[in-house]
């Protein structure tokens, strides 16, 4: 079956612009996670959804970052007024729901802010 997909695979934008990153989880997975991975680092937790609601958004770095999952499936990570420091690979993962369940990761979106 299809895995987690993310679009676009690469995004180049200018400082100050708005970007949206999309994640399509595995069908039937109720849990969805967003992470940010900078060069040479491990993934950094941003936000976790259970169904449509953000159950834990403690990892969002500031109010420029926002994520939605309106129908409990596809999720969009939105970044306003992008800064050069936002450049990273943004990863999405989905799972069946419980924290001990395996997370299945997408290939990531590489964001470059010029």
């Amino acid at each position, binding site marked *: 079956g299809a*895995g*987690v997909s993310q679009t676009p695979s690469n995004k180049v934008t200018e400082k100050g612009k708005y970007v949206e990153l999309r994640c399509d989880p595995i069908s039937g997975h109720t*849990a969805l*996670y967003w*992470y940010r991975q900078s060069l*040479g*680092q*491990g*993934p*950094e*937790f941003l936000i*976790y959804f*259970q169904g449509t609601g953000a*159950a*834990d958004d*403690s*990892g969002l770095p500031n109010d420029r970052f926002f994520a939605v999952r309106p129908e409990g499936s596809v999720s969009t990570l939105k970044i306003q007024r992008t800064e050069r420091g936002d450049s990273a690979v943004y*990863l999405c*993962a989905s799972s069946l729901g419980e*924290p*001990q369940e*395996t*997370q*299945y*990761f*997408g*290939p*990531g979106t590489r964001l470059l802010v010029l």
Partner: protein
Amino acid sequence: AQSVTQLDSQVPVFEEAPVELRCNYSSSVSVYLFWYVQYPNQGLQLLLKYLSGSTLVKGINGFEAEFNKSQTSFHLRKPSVHISDTAEYFCAVILTGGFKTIFGAGTRLFVKA
């Protein structure tokens, strides 16, 4: 605050040699422990996980890890590595009762012929 430390950023090893990738964590409550692997140009995938019970956990591709509560460690081992094991390995924890996954910085395993 919880944290995960992977003690080696890079581990070079010859093919068919044994390898151990070290992981220590800090937490005041019980945790679930995971090892993920990222092969070149591929996404992260789960190698193995410890939830409870036996402290020795076996995973895919011949890897195993041992949970040591007193030393707060979860080291990954393989008795004989292959060239195809060359990848980045990440240790991760989730506090029981929570969902936030904390990853280590990763260890790059480089297997030489």
